[in-house]
């Protein structure tokens, strides 16, 4: 615990000093920049709700990744699983003439199934084809990206328009509702908190969690306990894919209200880092996700207020990631 606090303090210090350096080089007022990032994320309830709308998919992906990391799987395909979840949701949302609530429920289930199936696909590539899940996952990310582009450019394009900018906007009845004055889908928050609790329960209390841990530690020995690693690899990656699929569903129905090529917004990759940074501890996931989300949201102030080249926000995020990896590295050495 003490180590963890030191890590976090050290990490923050690194992030801040590194970012300050970058800002200084860019000729920006350092303190102002930090102030604006802070205000940009927390100045009003609207902004906090925007932070939450990023927090939702980040946390969902992270929860899913906890399962695969526990089984020692590198589910880098999470990005594609978000995309496939969004596609699955959209496929249902496009069916006309069903009651909106029913449609949304169906879309939710389909997104879980699609994301899960996509994960399963990477899992099968590993267990049946002997393809390492990192390569399988990366490959499938490309496939899903190609697929969503094809859909947006092809069968699902707006009438008379072929643009990469997205499909037609969903009927308002199919938007996930938010509280007045809030910019985040209430259902998204509820789902995410539920998934967080379920993840904790499954990983800590269920035999599934224990088996995944056993397989993650020693797949050879698992066999001696009549636990088939293949089966649990598939189960964990299916669960991860389902969580990612839900994130895709919320991105589609609660944030963009349509399908866009970058529907996953890189949250899958960010979640991978976040989970590693958390040391695979679920307590830290919502907190770290909140931190990354507020940085993501707050950084937009840099181009608006300080007229900094907007690429700088990306540089700052990159710094955070590097610092995270650095901390991980020294934590490993200790």
């Amino acid at each position, binding site marked *: 615990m003490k180590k963890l606090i030191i890590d976090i303090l050290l990490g923050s210090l690194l992030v801040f000093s590194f970012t300050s350096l970058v800002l200084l080089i860019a000729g920006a007022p350092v303190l102002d920049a930090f102030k604006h990032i802070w205000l940009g994320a927390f100045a009003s309830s609207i*902004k906090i709700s925007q932070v939450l709308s990023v927090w939702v998919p980040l946390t969902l992906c992270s929860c899913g990744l906890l399962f695969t990391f526990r089984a020692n799987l590198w589910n880098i395909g999470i990005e594609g699983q978000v995309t496939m979840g969004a596609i699955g949701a959209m496929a249902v949302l496009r069916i006309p003439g069903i009651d909106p609530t029913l449609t949304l429920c169906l879309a939710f289930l389909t997104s879980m199934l699609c994301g899960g199936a996509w994960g399963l696909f990477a899992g099968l590539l590993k267990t049946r084809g002997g393809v390492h899940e990192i390569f399988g996952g990366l490959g499938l990310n490309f496939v899903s990206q190609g697929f969503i582009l094809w859909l947006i450019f092809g069968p699902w394009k707006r009438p008379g*328009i072929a643009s990469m900018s997205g499909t037609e906007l969903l009927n308002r009845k199919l938007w996930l509702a938010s509280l007045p004055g809030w910019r985040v889908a209430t259902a998204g928050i509820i789902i995410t908190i539920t998934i967080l609790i379920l993840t904790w329960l499954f990983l800590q209390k269920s035999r599934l969690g224990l088996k995944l841990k056993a397989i993650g530690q020693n797949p050879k020995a698992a066999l001696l306990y009549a636990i088939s690693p293949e089966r649990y690899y598939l189960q964990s990656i299916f669960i991860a894919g389902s969580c990612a699929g839900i994130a895709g569903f919320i991105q589609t129905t609660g944030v963009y209200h349509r399908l866009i090529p970058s529907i996953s917004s890189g949250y899958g990759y960010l979640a991978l880092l976040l989970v590693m940074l958390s040391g695979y501890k679920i307590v830290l996931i919502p907190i770290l996700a909140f931190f990354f989300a507020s940085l993501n949201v707050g950084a937009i102030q840099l*181009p608006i207020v300080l007229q900094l080249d907007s690429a700088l926000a990306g540089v700052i995020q990159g710094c955070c990631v590097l610092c995270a990896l650095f901390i991980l590295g020294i934590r490993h050495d200790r």
Partner: protein
Amino acid sequence: MTRKITGILAVFVAAVALLLSPAQSHASADTFIFGLLMVGPANDHGWSQAHFEAGKEIERNIPGSKMIYIDKVNPADRPGVTIPFLVDDLVSKGAKLIIGNSDDMTDGIREAAILHPDIKFIHISGDDALNPDSPENLSNLMGKMEYGQMMAGFAAAMTTKTGKIGYLGPLINDETKRLAASCFLGARYAWTEVLKKDPADLSFKISWIGFWFNIPGVTSDPTQVAKNFFDSGYDVVISGIDTTEALIVADQKKKEGADVAAIPYDYEGACEIAPDACLGVPYFNWYPGYSYFINNIKNNDWKKEWLWLGPNWKDMNNTKKSSISFKNGNALPGDVQTKLAVFAKGLGNESISLFTGPLNFQDKSIFLKEGETATEKQIWNLPQLLEGMDGSSK
């Protein structure tokens, strides 16, 4: 464990404290703040820069006006950032008017307009305002770039040696179809009426890349598309996208000894990147449109409008008056410049009307009968490309 809980509590307390702190606002009585959302970078030498410069011009000419802006507003550059989100932010900084400069922002602007009924919105290139059910605080502004593209097509046809003109198209929608068609009509006019050549010898090919600018991995790479054009005998490439790849490639090819040229798009200064390969640029000047709306707002004279502003034929290059213009480039020969001026004059006095029948669509169905002239609405909503154009209509 207790420490963990304390930590979590601390974060929440901090969040709540911030929530209660008042939102900042710079607005004072005599300033007029307007927010500009640009789809591409503010220095793209194209579409977004034209808007950015117009905003700067407003700041210089309308006392008390102040622009706040954000560029690269598209999901590829700013994943997770949505239009309503940015509008919320600009409004919290005191913006009274929001200008969204991309067709891509249609849905977001509409959503934001509903969320902020007391803020005025201008969506560039859309036509929401034509719909009676659309929000009253949302107007549309567009320039009649058809004329600019006709001149571009004219200049291209007058210059090409191979009779093959390439058109680097963005995505396919009504706007891009009508612009490409205008360009083609200008080119065909030059080819048949001025050069008196056989229309069958003129090849006009469109390649759509999928978006207004290059998004690696998502769109086709415009540099590559332009290269393909030049490598397969197209010696003039007209750009319909927001960025200047076509011109840059043309310049490279020219330096390698090829006799090629390009026409960029959108921004007055676009030729500056490679003046020697540039035949000229059809460009927007957004100042007249912006100032019209801002003055209306200041005079409490706002109404929902759909504004499609054309060139000021008498003084086409006057930034205060003309919304559309064509600026000659170094690569355009002097005699062609003269002929282009005559052509422009013809367009201005309507002695030359290119959207006049007989005109067929690409699928050979009739668009305009002999002698029939298209209405504004017919041009605005052009359903497909025209006969004689090579490229996809949907």
